[in-house]
């Protein structure tokens, strides 16, 4: 496939079109800077959880007003992240019911064509009072979320309750990991650009990229998502990607607690809505190299206990199917998941052991 080898170079130019001074500076100054930070932000905009959280105040419009104030805080945070360092990368995903969408990315290879609203943003007149790059991000995120809200409401009318169970968070995480994978890969090998003879110097310098994912979570766990979620976590762990979680409201999610614990990120539960901006700025803005020096909020105990597949009961000592690794709280003759039958001798042995213990 000869085409893609040329495509990245081309789209880099497109991406940097508005601020070519940045692009040149980035390539020349990169060797001295040792850490560039790529941040992936995943915003949970699941309408159900937003609505249910603010329904207490009995005003329908209050949820949307809350969402808007949260978005304001997020945009300030994103702008701050971009302003920290010229080379800082950024990708924003919105996750809703059953779908996740890329709203904005600075990844050089990504196509800018149909990302939520960014095309309109470029067309609009430049505003002398705002930094153009900030404006791109803001427009892309706001319009993307609006578009997504429309799509979700349309979808609700067409197929009700078919996709309701799945949440977009895992899809967003997996997409983010794919993008980060491609990003680190083009950094390390750089084969594509070096083959076409373009600026080999920038490639070696870029490989020190550190990346992290920040999830602004609003929705509680869905047990059907356990396996894909864990796979994402292990994928991130293997790639050395941190997962930070900021729980905006609602119950703690055990899955995301595990995600941040296993990848070395931090999990923070927001007690007060108004504190969002401060939390984002103080806990999640510092780059990974600085984080080592900070005492970030982390949870002491993570619930790693296992729940049985039969009653969802937390077990200390469980019985595991050797074929599918399903976990049961008591010996049973047949697996609930894969229908394997277990040998009689094993069952008898367990029964005897249990009797002995009772005596």
């Amino acid at each position, binding site marked *: 496939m*000869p085409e893609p080898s040329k495509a990245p170079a081309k789209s880099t130019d497109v991406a940097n079109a508005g601020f070519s001074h940045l692009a040149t500076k980035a390539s020349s100054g990169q060797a001295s800077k040792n850490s560039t930070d790529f941040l992936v932000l995943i915003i949970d905009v699941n309408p159900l959880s937003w609505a249910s959280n603010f329904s207490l105040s009995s005003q329908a419009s209050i949820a949307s007003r809350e969402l808007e104030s949260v978005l304001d805080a997020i945009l300030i945070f994103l702008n701050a992240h971009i302003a920290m360092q010229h080379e800082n990368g950024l990708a924003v995903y919105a996750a809703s019911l059953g779908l996740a969408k890329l709203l904005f990315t600075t990844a050089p290879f990504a196509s800018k064509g149909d990302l939520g609203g960014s095309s309109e943003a470029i067309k609009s007149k430049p505003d002398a009072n705002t930094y153009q790059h900030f404006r791109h991000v803001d427009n892309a995120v706001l319009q993307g979320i609006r578009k997504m809200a429309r799509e979700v409401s349309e979808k609700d009318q067409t197929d009700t309750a078919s996709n309701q169970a799945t949440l977009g968070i895992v899809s967003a995480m997996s997409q983010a990991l*794919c993008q980060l994978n*491609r990003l680190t890969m083009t950094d390390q090998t750089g084969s594509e650009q070096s083959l076409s003879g373009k600026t080999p110097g920038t490639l070696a310098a870029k490989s020190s990229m550190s990346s992290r994912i920040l999830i602004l979570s609003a929705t509680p766990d869905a047990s059907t998502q356990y396996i894909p979620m864990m796979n994402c976590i292990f994928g991130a762990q293997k790639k050395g990607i941190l997962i930070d979680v900021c729980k905006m409201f609602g119950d703690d999610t055990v899955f995301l607690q595990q995600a941040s614990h*296993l990848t070395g990120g931090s999990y923070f539960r927001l007690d007060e809505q108004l504190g969002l901006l401060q939390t984002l700025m103080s806990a999640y803005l510092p780059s990974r190299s600085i984080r080592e020096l900070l005492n970030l909020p982390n949870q002491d105990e993570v619930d790693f206990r296992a729940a049985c597949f039969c009653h969802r009961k937390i077990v200390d000592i469980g019985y595991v199917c050797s074929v599918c690794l399903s976990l049961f709280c008591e010996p049973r003759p047949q697996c609930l998941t894969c229908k394997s039958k277990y040998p009689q001798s094993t069952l008898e042995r367990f029964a005897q052991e249990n009797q002995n213990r009772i005596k």
Partner: protein
Amino acid sequence: MPPRGADDDYVGENEAIPEEEEDFLDDDDSGDEFQNLTPLPRLGRPGLRAKASAPAAQAKGKDSTKPKGKAKDAGYSWEATYKRSWDNVHEDESGSLEGAVRQMIDGNKRKRVMRDVAPVQRGIIRHLVLLIDLSSSMLEKDMRPNRFELTLQYAKEFVNEYFDQNPIGQLSIVGTREGIAERIAQMGGNTIDHVSALSNKRKLEPRGEPSLQNALEMARSSLAHLPASNSREILAIFGSLTTCDPGNIHDTIATLQKDQIRVSMVSLAAEVKILKEVCTKTGGSFSVALNEGHFRDCLFELLPPPAVEGPKRKAGGQADGIEASSVVQGVDLLQMAFPLRLPAHSEPTLCACHSKLKGSGYLCPRCGSKVCDVPTDCPVCGITIVMSTHLARSYHHLFPVSNWVAVGWEKVDEKSCPRCFSCAIPFPEKPGHANAAMNGAAAGKNKFNGTATSAAATSAAKKSTGAAKDDSGLAPSSRYACLKCGNHFCLECDAFVHENLHVCPGCC
């Protein structure tokens, strides 16, 4: 050994080959093929030597016609036709090899991706003995820097990767030299112990003759007592062509068969009948490493847990009737304990495994003793102690992502998304269909259009498997479609999702 100059010579003689190709040949898998032949002369069997040197001579000669008459007896790899890898590389119109080389690299990626995804029962709870030849033949320098160093390096990588892919598996390492077998690392689940044992080069200094039988017997002794639900395997890395055994090795093979221990081997020298026989009779695989890269591939092929149907098939051959009604072999219910994790700042106590004073640790829920690391078997009461995450790490073997199919050009229209679903890289435009495909408006709509589109995409993708893709499995349109969700992905994401992530971004 033919001097390194030999193939340089050959390339040099053929003036049509441009410079980049020489580089390429050096890295290529089969480019160094005659190096395998080196141990043969030491066999002291003139017949073999004559046979072996023939293909090399032919390859070295300037004669460009194919070597003939070697294909009919394909029993040994050195007797097979000499494959000239550079015949597969063709220049494009501009005389550049970039396209051809890229095609090969991509093809390799795809091949790895297309590996088994059929839902089979797998022996997730693995016990494996890594058997390393430490005889003087391991000092041979046909692999750089030498066989011994390379083996240790790959063994370390193998151990790390093994525990990553088999979190509740266990491993032990056995070496053989001077006619005896010695245990290098105990059966256990601790990566650090194993890697540090393999790092101690001075202690592992190769010398003398190996003993295959002694080594197999020692490995067997640490596997035979395990319950039937555990898969029992031996992986041997063997550099020697000889073995110095105290008894009849066929008796050992019989007992291995009886204990259902699967033996796989990677030979660094050549195919040896008895080595191959051990593997085939016990249901394992045997391979001869061609060069450094191939050696690594041979080892790493054995990383995913083996399918359980091996022993089952054997049992079925003897007694079909019984098998159908009763329990399938290898299926069992296992008792496992999920420990309480003690934080690092808790009061230090002695651990049951090393008798060290430590704050952090895990408490066995049955007997209350403290262990340093999980997964392990409780040293006091013997129960298997695991964390729920260890079980979760294995789930991707059981529920793999189905293979994605290559999409042909005819299946790509304005409705198809112009970029990769997961990494957003733009796909190449359809030839002769120029700017229409880039119109984001039409393309963006498609993606979330619900079931109708994805069903159409599914059927489209299915049809395209037969017609559009070439034999390498690469898609002409650079698109790969998930049959479940119908989204299109790039090759890079295809490889990443199937090898690392194990989640389809569109399906969840």
